[in-house]
Structure formats: structure tokens, C-alpha cells
């Protein structure tokens, strides 16, 4: 199999080494000449010191006959462009992108990158298994930061589900002002009955958070 690796950081370096050891044909593109030379000294002439985002150099590196292009630079936008150029310009059957910002995963997938590897997501996933999920989300700060906009996503088991808003003990210094239900924002009234899946938006002082969480989310489950 012929694999074109773009990005000669640690990931690209070890990936290229492993692929060669496993008997695959492999070319590594690294635009920074010094770095490219250093890798070439060690693993041989499979290194091309050019920018893999440029169509011209992708062609020179043999992208048109590559079975796989793996874009593993540290910059998401570069990895996206490398995969798109490989796919669109050179009909590479399989493109793999490293994604650093987990928020970019959906976009990359949508734009046709075949496989997405997100180190951030992997580590996050592994951490989240260990800590209770707390569903209060900070959307932003107001003023000098003395007030916060908070979102509470009501999960099954939340003490607020099925209750009317006026029954909740909303802490002083905090105000519930809206709910997003099925994607539609609606103002909260005293007689609104909260339902599972609702996203309740509140504004309050940071010290209200503990009480707010108790009311809307419930006690965090011990894992």
C-alpha cells in the first residue's frame, strides 16, 4: 500500500517509521526544511521538504497514485485542505485527517474527509468516563464577569423534569429566563412545565451555581 503522510511532527514521524517497518511504501511531506532534513537523515529519502497543501507538490509526491493520504499536521485548516485536495484533485480513495479542535470533527466529516482522528476527543473520552458528567454549561460572561450565562441540559432523572418553574427554588442572584425545547427558544413563564431534554438558560452570579445545579441537574452521580 502507498501511504502519503503530510506533516512531519511527532505523529507524522512515528507514523512514517511504523509504516515503513510494516513494509508499506510511504512518502512524508514536511514543509519546514530543517525538520525535513533531520527526518531524512534518520529514515532515508522518503521525505519531501515541501508544503503538502500545494497541489503542485502533492503531485510530485505521488498523490495521484496514493492509496491513503494521512494529514497529520498540527493545524486543522491545513489538514482539511490536504484531504480535500487529495480527494478532489487526485482521487485518493481514503483520506485521514488529524483534528485538534473536536468542534471541527463534524465539519470535516461533512466536507468529505473519510476518517477523522481526534487526539483531544480520545483523551476527553477517557477522562469523562472517570468523572461525573455535570450538565451545566457556561455560555459566557456578562459585564466584568460578575454574572454568567449558564445552560442546564435536563437529563432523565433531573429533579426539575415535570415540575412547573414557579415550584423551583431558584437561588437569589440568579434568574431563569428561557428554555430551548426541540431547538426552539421560548421564554420561561411561571407555569411552564419543564421536560426532559430542555435546555434551561439562566443568568446568575457564579456562587449560585451549586444550588442551581441541585435544582436543575440533581446530585452528580458517583461513578
Amino acid at each position, binding site marked *: 500500500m502507498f501511504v502519503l503522510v503530510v506533516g512531519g511532527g511527532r505523529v507524522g514521524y512515528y507514523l512514517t517509521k511504523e509504516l515503513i517497518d510494516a513494509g508499506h511504501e510511504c512518502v512524508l511531506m514536511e514543509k519546514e526544511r530543517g525538520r525535513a532534513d533531520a527526518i531524512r537523515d534518520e529514515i532515508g529519502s522518503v521525505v519531501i521538504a515541501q508544503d503538502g*497543501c*500545494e*497541489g*503542485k507538490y502533492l503531485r510530485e509526491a505521488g498523490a495521484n497514485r496514493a492509496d491513503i493520504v494521512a494529514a497529520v499536521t498540527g*493545524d*486543522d*485548516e*491545513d489538514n*482539511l*485542505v490536504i484531504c*480535500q*485536495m487529495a*480527494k*478532489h*484533485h487526485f482521487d485518493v480513495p481514503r483520506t485521514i485527517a488529524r483534528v485538534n*479542535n473536536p*468542534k*471541527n470533527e463534524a*465539519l470535516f466529516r*461533512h*466536507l*468529505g*474527509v473519510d476518517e477523522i482522528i481526534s487526539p483531544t476527543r480520545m483523551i476527553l473520552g477517557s477522562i469523562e468516563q472517570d468523572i461525573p458528567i455535570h450538565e451545566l454549561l457556561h455560555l*459566557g460572561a456578562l459585564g466584568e464577569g460578575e454574572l454568567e450565562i449558564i445552560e442546564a441540559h435536563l437529563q432523565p432523572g433531573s429533579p426539575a423534569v415535570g415540575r412547573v418553574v414557579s415550584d423551583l427554588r431558584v437561588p437569589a442572584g440568579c434568574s431563569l429566563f428561557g428554555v430551548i425545547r426541540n431547538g426552539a427558544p421560548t421564554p420561561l413563564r411561571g407555569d411552564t412545565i419543564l421536560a426532559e431534554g430542555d435546555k434551561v438558560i439562566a443568568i446568575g452570579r457564579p456562587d449560585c451555581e451549586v444550588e442551581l445545579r441541585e435544582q436543575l441537574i440533581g446530585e452528580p452521580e458517583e461513578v
Partner: protein
Amino acid sequence: MKAVIVGCGRVGAGLADALDRAGWQVLIIDRTTAAFDRLPASFGGTALRGDGTDEDTLRRAGAEGADLFLALTEGDNRNVMAAQLGVESLRAVRTVAKINDPVRAEAYAHLGIATVCRTNLMEVAVLSFLGQAVGDRPGVFIPEKAHSHALDESAVPAGSTES
């Protein structure tokens, strides 16, 4: 009419000012606040420090559903990514990305993003000034089709993309 501009360089600031004067509602985003010094004191739009390739930042800034989305940072790939976010996630009506590499500028026009290529624009300007033939150097690449699932053509039966 709402315009979102990512990148407050000379071109971004100049266009922000022009659109602002023409009565547009302008939002301009740059990673450094110093960049906003390029905006004139009269600028009546919003200048926001943030990453224009970050979907959440753009959304929070109210970039959704813009009539015009311009990606004008100094990085070709940042522009490519911002522009595609603008079209695909934020549903911008018209999008233009600055891509200085002519190969990429043309490639992304095929994928449905209008691109402006400064390299070609300047080569044409200089060659014209010198009275030389300019050859085939489009400064603006206009897409033939709308950008959507542009790379998924293989998943769609041939001929069915135009519907």
C-alpha cells in the same frame, strides 16, 4: 444586509469600512485586537477578537445566516476553512475566500467557493502596466455550482447533482 468578514488586514478593514458606509450591518473578526486599528474611527459595525475558523465563535458573534461572508486572513487554508464553515454551517448566502495560491484558488472554485487570487490579480496588473500579454490568470474564480457535499460526488449517482 449582514456581512461577516474574517481577517482585519488592509483588505478586510477596507471592505468593512466600504460596506459599513453603504449601510450594511458589518461584523469583522480578527485574532488580534491591534488589527482593528486599521478600521476608521467612523466604523459603525462590530469588531470582535476571536478565531474566525471556530464555529462556536462565529455563531456566538451572530454570524449565522449572513448575506455575505468574506474570508480574508493571511492564511489560504484558514480562509478555505472559514469560508466552508460560512457556507455549510452558518448558511451564508454568498461567500468569498481569498486564496493566493492559484492552484488552490481554482480547485476551491470547483468545489463551489468563490475565490479571489491576489497572485493572479497582481501579475495581471503588472503585466498590463508593462504592456505585456496577461495570459490566463483569473483574479476571481467564480464557482459553477453551489457548495454542498462538494466532495461527496462519488456517493451521488452521476448526473443527479444538478437537481
